[in-house]
């Protein structure tokens, strides 16, 4: 994974709560054996009408949302299934950060492991960003801060390990495999009885 320190972009806003992983990528698109190329399915049943035409009312289809890499979404984003296809689809669609007042556990884990910044902000700051789509933000992982156009700053909390992994592009599989001796010792200890 490439190191990430700053994500700078305008925001697109999806003001709906409880956006579940079936919304993010419907299950019928999960019959792939790859990670790539899933962006075309992101929010598919919202972005497209059943006849295949673009749903002009969907916020991400609006002209002003084009090119936005930061998504501000309603509370409890990513609830539902464990499908990692959800962050894969969002990244491939061009989203690099999701901000919400609450993000479901499994989705958040999956997102951070793929370099998609899934960040929880306070209710107040969340409400502000929901009300102001298109705002240019700079998310700075080094300082756990979000810079607003007027110079104001929001802060977010992120687990130190996840942050270091993102900042340094740490390969978590490699990190785990380096613990081989400890894992072997654990296995020997428990089977020694």
């Amino acid at each position, binding site marked *: 994974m490439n190191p990430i320190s700053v994500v700078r972009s305008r925001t697109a806003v999806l003001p709906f709560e409880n956006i579940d992983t079936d919304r993010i990528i419907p*299950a019928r698109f999960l019959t*792939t*054996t790859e990670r790539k190329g899933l962006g075309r399915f992101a929010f598919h049943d919202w972005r497209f009408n059943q006849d295949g035409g673009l749903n002009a009312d969907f916020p991400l289809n609006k002209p002003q949302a084009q090119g936005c890499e930061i998504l501000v979404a*309603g509370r409890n984003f990513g609830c*539902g*299934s*464990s499908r*990692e296809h959800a962050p894969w689809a969002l990244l491939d669609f061009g989203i690099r950060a999701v901000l919400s007042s609450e993000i479901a556990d499994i989705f958040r884990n999956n997102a951070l492991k793929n370099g998609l910044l899934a960040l929880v902000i306070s209710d107040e700051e969340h409400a502000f960003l929901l009300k102001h789509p298109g705002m240019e933000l700079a998310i700075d992982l080094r300082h756990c801060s979000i810079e607003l156009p007027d110079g104001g700053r929001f802060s977010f909390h992120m687990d130190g390990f996840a942050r270091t992994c993102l900042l340094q592009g740490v390969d978590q599989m490699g990190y785990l495999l380096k613990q081989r001796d400890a894992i072997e010792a*654990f296995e020997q200890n428990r*089977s020694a009885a």
Partner: protein
Amino acid sequence: MPGGEFILRNYVNMPTSNPAPRTLLDKIWDRHAVLAETADAPGTLYIDLHLIHEVTSPQAFTELRQRGLEVRCPERVLATLDHSTPTDKADAHGRHAYATPEAAEQVNTLERNCAEFGIALHGWDSAQRGIVHVIGPELGATQPGMTIVCGDSHTSTHGAFGALAFGIGSTEVGHVLASQCLLQRKPKNFSVQVDGRLQPGVSAKDLALYIIGKIGFNGGTGHAFEFHGSAIEALDMEQRMTLCNMSIEAGARAGLIAPDQTTFDYLQGRAMAPKGDAWNASLAQWRMLKSDPGAAFDRHISINAAEVGVTISYGTHPGMVVGIQSNIPAAADFQEQKALQYMQLHAGQSLLGAKVDVVFIGSCTNSRLADLRAAAEILRGRKVAGHVRMLVVPGSVPIQQAAEAEGLHHVFQQAGAQWREPGCSMCIAMNGDKAETGELVVSTSNRNFEGRQGQGARTVLASPAVAAACAVAGCIADPADYLNDKEQAA
């Protein structure tokens, strides 16, 4: 046949010096901590049992191949086919009617991966194949005190056995395949105490929906539930699995129930359960798996079982629930208004009498023998309403065979329902079993999200008894009407 006896020796006597009272979760966690969690880094948690299926594993195997890695403990991995598999019978040549070529390729990929990496697969030719969360317990692979993961959020099901079981993503599937470990922080402890007795006719599914309604769809985020209390102790294993299965629908990745005699009786004699002396040794350790008196929980909720009625969902997430005889409450906000609009329902309305198009009995929540019996009890001697399409999908081949041995398939077929081959089917609607736009589905599955069971389809979550009653009535109906009928006739 894959999978011999599965024994974990000496997994209890890890750190014993900690004098503070601990929860069941704490105990299992401590026993599996290869490296303890610190402020700077998550813990390294050893995984006893890794369940895999065709949808969330292919990318993990690709990663292993790219890095030239082996599967560290293939004997701790159990694979099955369930999500993308058709539930129609194979043709005379043994060919399966996959929804798409990609679905077939996904299944072939898992078959190849399991062969290459030496993993036991319960594939098409296995007499144990079925939904991953059904077969783990059925085989006796799921055991108390274990850590169990799967690339599937309903892995929480296995917590019914006093195991710490939770869903993971595909990257983590790769981590576990390669290292048998996960980098994890311990979730917080959430005590869900249910005392008293469930009323007759009220099932574990009703209890699960009721609890989610109380705690909220996201109320368990960051936590693991421990269900306890006299009403929980009275549940059989199938009911406990239904309850723990739905933990994730309140946002909790895991839900645990301390093992007891009910658990041990269920496990004894199963193919992968310990035998002989090993059984006795395991029992001695399993009996210690309970929260200590005075153990600290971060949150607690107490529920009187007697107040739980037959419960169904009316919205687009599993926290929007209502007693079957109650009216839909006023929408609390714009989000709930939107949900009601999607469901074509309105506040103040009773769901009773709402026209039903499809009834689905199945899924890792409610596809076990007791669930099928509960549905058959209502369907016996009755007909599914002419306009209703009803699918009954057993959770595994052994369940299918057991149901057929007692003639349940005849009950379903004579009523006009379709008796299908085991799989996830219309719960996730990725194998071709799905509802059409606008159709109202009464489903024994776990999620009623927009489009979950087919683009534009509307889902009402319910118990098997409710689902069967709705199939007969052709509209949302209370099973009590049918059960009482029978009692009066008898």
